[in-house]
């Protein structure tokens, strides 16, 4: 893991303010940029003084704004999921995409679409939660059955194996029910076409998931001292883990059901945040959320720029950013080494 910079509360608040400003500006840019470029003041006007007679205002309200907010929320959720997973397992490689959670969610979504066509949006989201849950349980089961426990490399390999298995079964089902296109979308990850309905789903699940995450933040910090120490301090570790897994499922499930699998975001953001803000999860979780939101909004802009006028799946962009970081972690003392 990276060493941390020492800093005061004031500095932390300054960092948060700065990130919020950066996030607002990049969301503005995200809205402004597109097939028809719109100037930033117009964006502001469309939000504050909406005029339904203007096409630009309508484009902003119906297409671009929901996309930007969805990107911010998905990024935040994945980053927080990663932070909680890393905190609970004390494993630097734990994160939604490494652990096959996103594959699980996509798996459940394909099954739902194949066998219950035409289900409502909330039902799809619940399927996504369930699928994410299946993957997490499977990966943890592999870990707890194995003799040496869930070492970083085992976690990564178990995630790869279970992810591949779930993806393979999904593709058979998708082939049979002609859902290849949908499956392809969830595997690549993208934010095109997210409307206000998707935002409602995100907002509702996010409210629950984030509240749980913030509630357990302090306990996760204590857990990082070691399970025995935490238990000695009177902490109920079992309850904490259940709550942690619950919030991860809700946050990741909602994110995948809207944007598909977005690789490595949940892995790298918590590390960067830990480096900047320290290991106190009361700070780490909210700041991870902000950084995650910022990173995904920016990646989404890049995904539209790389191959304009066509879109590149944003999951591919985040993977390309994330891989060098993953390699750095793998080379680090906690990644490979003695484990």
């Amino acid at each position: 893991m990276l060493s941390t910079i020492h800093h005061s509360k004031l500095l932390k608040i300054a960092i948060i303010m700065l990130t919020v400003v950066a996030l607002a500006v990049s969301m503005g840019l995200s809205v402004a940029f597109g097939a028809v470029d719109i100037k930033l003041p117009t964006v502001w006007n469309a939000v504050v003084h909406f005029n339904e007679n203007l096409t630009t205002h309508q484009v902003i309200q119906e297409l671009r704004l929901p996309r930007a907010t969805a990107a911010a929320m998905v990024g935040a959720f994945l980053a927080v999921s990663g932070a909680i997973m890393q905190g609970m397992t004390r494993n630097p490689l734990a994160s939604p995409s490494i652990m096959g959670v996103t594959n699980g969610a996509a798996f459940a979504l394909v099954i739902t679409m194949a066998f219950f066509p035409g289900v409502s949006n909330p039902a799809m989201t619940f399927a996504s939660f369930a699928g994410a849950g299946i993957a997490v349980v499977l990966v943890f089961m592999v870990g707890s059955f194995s003799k040496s426990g869930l070492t970083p490399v085992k976690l990564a390999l178990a995630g790869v194996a279970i992810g591949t298995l779930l993806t393979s079964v999904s593709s058979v089902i998708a082939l049979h029910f002609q859902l290849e296109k949908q499956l392809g979308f969830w595997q690549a990850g993208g934010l095109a076409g997210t409307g206000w309905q998707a935002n409602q789903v995100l907002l509702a699940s996010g409210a629950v998931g984030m509240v749980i995450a913030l509630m357990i933040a302090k306990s996760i910090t204590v857990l990082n001292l070691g399970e025995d120490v935490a238990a000695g301090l009177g902490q109920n570790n079992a309850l904490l883990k259940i709550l942690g897994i619950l919030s991860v499922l809700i946050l990741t499930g909602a994110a995948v059901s809207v944007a598909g699998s977005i690789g490595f975001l949940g892995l790298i953001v918590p590390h960067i945040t830990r480096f900047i803000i320290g290991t106190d999860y009361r700070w780490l979780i909210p700041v991870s959320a902000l950084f995650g939101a910022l990173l995904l909004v920016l990646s989404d802009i890049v995904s539209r720029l790389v191959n304009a006028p066509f879109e590149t799946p944003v999951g591919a962009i985040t993977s390309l950013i994330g891989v060098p970081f993953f390699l750095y972690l793998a080379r680090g003392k906690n990644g490979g080494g003695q484990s």
Partner: protein
Amino acid sequence: MSQSRKYKTLRFATVTVLLVVLIVVLFFITLGTGVVSISPLGVLKTIIGQGTDRQELVLLDFRLPRIVLALLVGAGLAVSGAILQGVTQNELAEPGILGINTGAGFAVVLFIFFVQDSLNGTLSVFIIPLFALLGALVAAFLVYTLAWKNGVNPIRLVLVGIGINAGFSAALIILQLKMNPENFRQVTVWLSGDIWSASWPFVMSLLPWMVILIPFALVKANALNVLHLGDDVAAGLGSKVEGDRLVLLLTAVALAGASVAAGGAIAFLGLVVPHLARKLIGPMHQYTIPVSALIGALLLMAADMIGKNLLAPMEIPVGVVVSILSAPYFIYLLIKTN
């Protein structure tokens, strides 16, 4: 000592004969099944030149090259995995996990993207394996150097491989989307592992690789046995550790690259098959390499048949079938090993 060696040889002979018989039986079943089903007698007749024109077309031009390719690719990937596991002293090493398959895939896709349209068909069939080899080499080089930190630790090697794999996959997606729809489909199916463009020229372009490299690996089996004991012991026994390792690694990478060119990114096969071979015949590489080749060929032929017929007329890519068959075994290995 000689008693046990005799027993070993006997066991090896039995296993080999059994596998060959299984392959032959399955070979005839696979030839006969499909949208047009042909009786075993009909298959035999067609092979000796007595079948109807229709049977000849279906069997000799469509099914036979595909089965031969499946056999070659299966053997190639399995031997590649066996060598990699021996060289890295890592039971979980495999061309798929180490990112070599994806690297080869990336190079092939680059080739299709930039060159294929300007070349005629037969020529590109022979060039694709070379490109795949190049990509496999680049990936292997990247993984090896990035995992290097006062020597190559097996665990770091696997983790770096996973990372490189993800990187190439992401680059592939970006590249794929820039293609025209026809190439896009071709690449998508192929990437999930599929015996594509099964034709005799393709078989011919793959055959020399396998015919040269698999026996070469067999010749090097003793060096592999020694390397498997660990670098220090190997050096003590008078082995040129670095030289042998390099030659063997290159062999494994070349086998994987050629296999990927024909069969796409088939995951887990190279990992699981050597384990099965060791279970059957013990750890000596002069035995495990041929047995791995046979099991790999058998497994891929079976997987291809299942994929072709399970949801017929829809075809499931063979890589998907292999993953579903072998991922549970991989998970079992993961639980068992330390």
